[in-house]
């Protein structure tokens, strides 16, 4: 087949321009494709949620495993999504925050707790003060809002919101929106958690300098003592009914951002990030999720590392409590799945942008934010990827 002869100089110019654009595009494609570290043997499917173009921020699966609550950035709505039928169930105007909210179902699934997120934490060494909202998970009705609080959780019976602000732990009746009680935790910091059995309240706080200075274990290393006093925190467990102090975990943690109990109340997960003065030059954004055996009051030497650049990572335990997943970052956003018993990493998914994968209208997930939810089979999970969701079957 012979090529057509083009005599029109304008057409020639257009053709040259088109060729140039194509060469540039494919050249870039090849470079990008070559530059991306490809995982092999990964089974996943990317899909869109009912044509939604908004960038997703966080996801959580309802306790009945039917509904995926999805929040999005830039004050966009919050969605309820039937992940099995892949149908949008509902849309709520809530969590009106630019970087979107973290989202969590209450134990019964009747309520949703939203926590304001930020793209960047400009004062990582200071206590977090953000906004919280609690919604009815069916209607999206706003029940209560907390402005500039360190942390908030919903009680297992859905009756109370428990908040941390300054040194005060407060109990808010969700029917009346009235504060019904409170107590003080000296030098409280960022995080509070209530155990699903309703017995324990875990609260993070600064170390007690006087106590440490008089402790022979620590007074012989001034360098370390200063670090413990200035940059480390501790976790104390209280009786959730009487507010009586039960015990302080015999371990020092970096700046605690989040505390979560396992569903059987046996383990407490503590996400902490070192003070900027303690961060390693080699990996300045390393954080850790440490595990505490609550029943035995024992801080375990099971620690899951994560690298987070912009905000707090997502981490979850599978429903059978055999797998622990955490988001991380290493050139691309990633999800790591560990065997919870042994601490061995089993699977890794790079939520990397592959230019050859890109669908029309897809927005990139380049800001290191990723959230996920284990599916009921505990062999697959749904992961956010920009304005798409990824169904990853990690166990074949």
């Amino acid at each position, binding site marked *: 087949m012979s090529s057509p002869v083009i005599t029109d100089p304008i057409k020639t110019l257009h053709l040259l321009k088109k060729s140039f654009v194509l060469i540039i595009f494919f050249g870039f494609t090849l470079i990008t494709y070559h530059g991306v*570290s490809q*995982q*092999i043997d990964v089974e996943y499917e990317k899909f869109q949620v009912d044509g939604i173009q908004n960038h997703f921020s966080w996801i959580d699966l309802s306790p009945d495993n039917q509904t995926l609550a999805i929040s999005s950035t830039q004050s966009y709505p919050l969605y309820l999504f039937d992940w099995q039928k892949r149908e949008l169930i509902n849309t709520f105007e809530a969590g009106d925050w630019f970087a979107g909210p973290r989202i969590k179902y209450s134990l019964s699934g009747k309520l949703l707790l939203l926590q304001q997120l930020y793209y960047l934490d400009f004062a990582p060494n200071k206590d977090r003060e953000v906004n919280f909202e609690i919604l009815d998970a069916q209607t999206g009705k706003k029940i209560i809002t907390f402005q500039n609080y360190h942390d908030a959780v919903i009680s297992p019976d859905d009756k109370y919101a428990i908040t941390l602000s300054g040194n005060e732990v407060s109990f808010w009746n969700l029917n009346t929106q009235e504060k019904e009680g409170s107590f003080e935790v000296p030098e409280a910091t960022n995080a509070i958690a209530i155990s699903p059995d309703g017995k324990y309240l875990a609260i993070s706080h600064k170390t007690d300098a006087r106590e440490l200075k008089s402790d022979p*274990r*620590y007074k*012989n*290393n*001034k*360098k*370390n003592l200063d*670090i413990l006093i200035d940059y480390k925190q501790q976790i104390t467990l209280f009786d959730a009914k009487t507010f009586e102090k039960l015990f302080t975990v015999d371990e020092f943690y970096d700046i605690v951002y989040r505390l979560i109990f396992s569903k059987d109340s046996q383990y407490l997960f503590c996400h902490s990030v*070192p003070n900027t003065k*303690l961060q*390693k*030059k*080699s*990996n300045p954004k*390393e954080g*850790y999720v*440490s595990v505490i055996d609550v029943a035995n009051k024992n801080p375990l*030497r*099971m*620690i*899951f*590392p994560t*690298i987070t650049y912009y905000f707090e990572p997502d981490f979850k335990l599978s429903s059978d409590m055999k797998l622990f997943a955490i988001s*991380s970052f*290493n050139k691309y956003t*990633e999800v*790591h799945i560990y065997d919870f018993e042994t*601490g*061995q*990493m*089993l*699977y*890794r998914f790079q939520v990397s942008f592959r230019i050859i994968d890109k669908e029309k209208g897809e927005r990139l997930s380049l800001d290191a934010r990723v959230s996920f939810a284990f599916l009921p089979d505990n062999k697959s999970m749904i992961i956010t990827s920009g304005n798409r969701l990824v169904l990853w079957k990690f166990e074949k």
Partner: protein
Amino acid sequence: MKKQMFTLIATTSLLFSYAQEEMPLVWEQKMEHKIEYNGTGTEERGYSYAASAKEITFFDNNTGQTKWTAAFKEIVPKLSKIDELIPFWESNILFLFDRKMGKDQMACVDMESGKLLWSTDKYQDVSDDNLVYIPEDDAFAISLKTMLVYIKARTGEEKWSTSKFKGVVGKYVYMSDGYMVAVNFVPGGLGALFTGFKNQIAKFNMSNGDIVWENTYIGRAERKIVSRDFIYDLDVENNKVFLRLNGIQVYDYNTGANLYSAAFDFTPDIIGKPINAKKFGVYGAVADPVVIDQDLYVLDMMNKRTQYIKKYDLNSGKLLWTSPEIKEAKAIPHMMVEGDKIILQIGGAVECQAVIKKEYTVNNVTYYYWVYKIYYKNVKPCGVQAFNTKDGSLAWDSERFRKGITNGIMIDNQYYICSGTALYKMDANTGNEMYEVPISNAGVGNATLIFPYQNKIAMFGEKGVAIYNTEKGELMCSGKYKTSDVADMFDNIVIMETDNDDIAAFDLNTCKYLQFNAKKGAISDLSTDGQYVYVYENKVVSKLKTK
């Protein structure tokens, strides 16, 4: 008269007492060609080689008789003169290189028979630096400008190639599941070959060259200048890849995920290089990380003035504690954990390696040659400190070693340390001295290094070797030689070598030695069983007994 007689007898007996036996000659063979390249095979193998740029001779280790000899052009017509020769003993292969601009010839010859296995001009810019033998597959990984090629050693057949791994295959771990984890590096002088190089650590499927995962690492994964040992370690344990380079970097073996790193950037600048040194390196100035169960102890050399010990959780890299600052330390060559104490040796003997240009004049003609030297230099300030493993607090600090240290060693959970002029036994728990023994009675000059030998303490002096018992530090034996350095060691045999290339073989059981006065520029190789020394001089190969 009696007095004069006594003096004469005493002097004579003293002379006789220092008269040392020569190493018995097993055989001596003169080659038909100069010896520019040499290689000593093990006694089990039974043969070695000596070669010039044009000819090569393989000889029998037992008799010195020629096994085969040939001009290179007889083996490979395209090779009249070689520029480099690399032996790969494990595969019985000799690599020959003839470098011509853009038309490099490479040939593989069977050591046993001298027959050509294969030759090619397909691969350019290949040298000892970018050719790695992988014995597990009997194959070579050749790092070229654009790709890594994996070829079968004895046929030259290309098994696979990949362009996703730049630079030379450095240290690697070949796993039983057929996968290999390797780091890349750029040898000195090959920087121009690997443009766009980046530090890579990768896991290969060795059957097809697929890279399962790749990641980056921090630091320069180099080799030592003379001994060619890698200056880092790579291990796979418990499904984790541990790269010990400037601290420690940890990856997940299955997925390649970057788990954590506790690394620092530190370049020792503590010892000046010798005059006329072409290449020079200082090694071991910073102690390697120590792993005890789930604890990782890393010496963090933040900068020249600030050093700390840091204890991390091995699995996650979480910092558990930081020790007080270790003040005024230029080098911390040793860190060991004994019970609940971390013992730090500050200053002392640090390994140096150098390639030095030397010359000698005969009949008004000056000859130049290269000396490959491994030696130890003492770095000050010196000291010994111990820290508690629980919280990093200082347990004790010994003032005793301010003036000097060679090194410290552990024998049966007891700590022994040498100041250069005295030997000490110390209680690791308290830092108390259990004894102090001056070493002047050994008559071998100041100590340069001590090391454990059969529950005894062997000491290398400036002029010989001495053995002490551990119990009370009593001198058991000593042997005085000339000013020399340790050149080689096997079991009870230690080879000491002078600057003039003379050697002495010491028996550590008796401290007696046999000596051999070699010609300038001679190369001595201790056999792998320590029984013999092969000396290569000009055209002559000699085999000598060490006992």
